[in-house]
């Protein structure tokens, strides 16, 4: 495994209590693989990414667990070693490129800086590399665009530029958190194609985080579903999308309207709403919304277990059932 996360726990201490947006999360990302991480708002999915990079904002902190990346223990790194991993070993793409790109630097300089810092390229070589990269990421007239400032680009081009900054250090792993959420549908589809393309071209692994299961299904090899700080199901994308087994995953897929499925049909909605992380139900956090819950589910948290073709955290799903 390129990245291996075990029993990661991140805690936020608030005035009137505490909450655990990441509450015992374990998974691995293999070399060249795209792992999709899906969850609704408040599920803790973004906090997983921030915990891996040790970027959890105050008053939160990683309490325990291990994050191993190419044999390095990321949580114990400090100073220069940590900076080498961020942007060098692991690149990061966020939802909103207007926030993560620096508005007063040219796009090309922002890309070239990363190549100089992490790959030791000289100034001219780094600039040429930036222009080539922009062209490779589907930006027309890359020489001209490299000299542009972020505000001069459309939303789709800005997202491509942000991806260029993230991959300029040739990271082994790209973490992309909601990279298409702010974009129009046609541009979203182009960015999905782009993620697949750069993965093939650079042989990168991708951890793709999104609320949009349909988009993730299109890009990811394996899919991991999070609910209230815990992973409830992980498996190959076909297993998750065609035969979901955890009641939450089933509910989520039933709730998504498929284009072409016909007008007027009611969706299978999940009753209730996602729980408040500061006030979780006992046992399985999904049990108050679950159509299959019984006494066991209320009393203890179901472990994430191997059920044959996937891992699933549900008492109603087991190898023997």
């Amino acid at each position: 495994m390129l990245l291996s996360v075990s029993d990661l726990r991140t805690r936020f201490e608030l005035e009137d209590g505490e909450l655990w947006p990441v509450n015992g999360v374990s998974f691995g990302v293999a070399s060249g693989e795209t792992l999709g991480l899906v969850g609704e708002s408040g599920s803790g999915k973004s906090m997983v990414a921030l915990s891996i990079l040790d970027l959890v904002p105050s008053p939160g902190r990683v309490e325990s667990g291990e994050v191993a990346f190419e044999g390095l223990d990321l949580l114990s790194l400090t100073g220069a070693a940590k900076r080498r991993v961020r942007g060098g070993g692991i690149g990061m793409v966020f939802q909103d490129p207007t926030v993560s790109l620096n508005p007063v630097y040219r796009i090309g300089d922002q890309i070239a800086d990363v190549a100089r810092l992490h790959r030791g390229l000289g100034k001219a070589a780094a600039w040429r590399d930036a222009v080539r990269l922009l062209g490779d990421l589907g930006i027309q007239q890359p020489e001209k665009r490299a000299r542009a400032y972020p505000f001069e680009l459309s939303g789709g081009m800005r997202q491509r530029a942000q991806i260029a900054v993230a991959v300029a250090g040739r990271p082994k792993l790209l973490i992309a958190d909601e990279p298409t959420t702010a974009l129009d549908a046609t541009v979203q589809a182009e960015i999905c194609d782009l993620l697949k393309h750069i993965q093939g071209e650079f042989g990168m692994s991708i951890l793709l985080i999104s609320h949009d299961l349909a988009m993730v299904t299109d890009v990811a090899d394996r899919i991991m579903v999070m609910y209230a700080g815990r992973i409830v199901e992980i498996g190959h994308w076909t297993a998750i999308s065609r035969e979901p087994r955890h009641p939450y995953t089933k509910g989520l897929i039933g709730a998504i309207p498929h284009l072409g499925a016909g007008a007027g049909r009611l969706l299978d909605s999940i009753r209730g709403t996602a729980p408040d992380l500061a006030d979780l139900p006992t046992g399985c956090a999904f049990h108050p919304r679950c159509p299959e819950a019984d006494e066991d589910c209320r009393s203890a948290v179901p472990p994430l277990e191997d059920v044959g073709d996937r891992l699933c955290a549900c008492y109603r799903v087991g190898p023997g059932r």
Partner: protein
Amino acid sequence: MKDLPILSVRGLHKSFPMGRGWAGRSGRLEAVAGVDLDLQPGEVVGIVGESGSGKTTLGRCVLRLVEPSAGAVTLDGSDFLALRGRRLRRRRRRLGIVFQDPYSSLNPRMQIGQIVAEPLRAAGGMPTGAVSEKVVQLLERVGIEPRFLNRYPHEMSGGQRQRVAIARALATDPDVLVADEPVSALDVSVQAQILNLLLDLKREGRVAMLFISHDLAVVERVADRIAVMYAGRIVETARTDKLISHPLHPYTQALLSAVPSVDPAFRRERVRLRAELGRPGHRVDGCALAGRCPVVQDVCRNEAPPLDEVRSGHRVACHLAEDQAD
């Protein structure tokens, strides 16, 4: 014989002044550039488009939340744009609106009961007891129990708030509901609940809807008919099943093919548009999509295609649509 439309829009234009921009440009941005639209009583029409297509401005012009620059809006047979003052306010009760964000559209200092009662109070002529009774009925209709009457918006979830916003929009028994991205801010599991509520309202048949959304899969569920907008114009409109199964405009085809699906059986071959170089909304001769269209011809750059009926009830604004329809 068709009913008389409850809402009819003809030649609607709305332009906004653009300040002197960074490139020294100035002039007017045509957000809505000549839209015709009919809504039958109880019908749901989906308005689909990407950001900047003018779909939100169209909805606001219909409500006169922004004043159209030109064109006509007829509500239940009478001219809606000619009204002023009290008569406008009275007439506007026949229209309701639901906004995207239920966090900013509800007054945080008002209780749920007050929020839903406010349109009734403003309308006047209803004794207090009757107002309270009606509020309970309205909340029941959207799936909110009476025990929430004295709660404040911050005590409720996003889905519950959107139900309250829908109850408020229905308070004056409007003929037309304008719902602008009503489920876009909600999580998937909650989005399904609100869509199902809107489907229930549709089945009741008491209110027609303009359902504005960027999400075609969502619109397909609720709309009887879909109108696709690009750069301020309707480029294609047809019955929902026809538009989804046989899109004729290249833009509609691209939009449909870009929708990802959990089920690979629903995936379509991708129709790609070229990268946008100009900005939409700028006056161009010819078709607004010409610069991005994968099948563009010379005629497209010189002559704007009219929205022609190529099959019964299926209108397309594309010079090449006739060939495709055969």
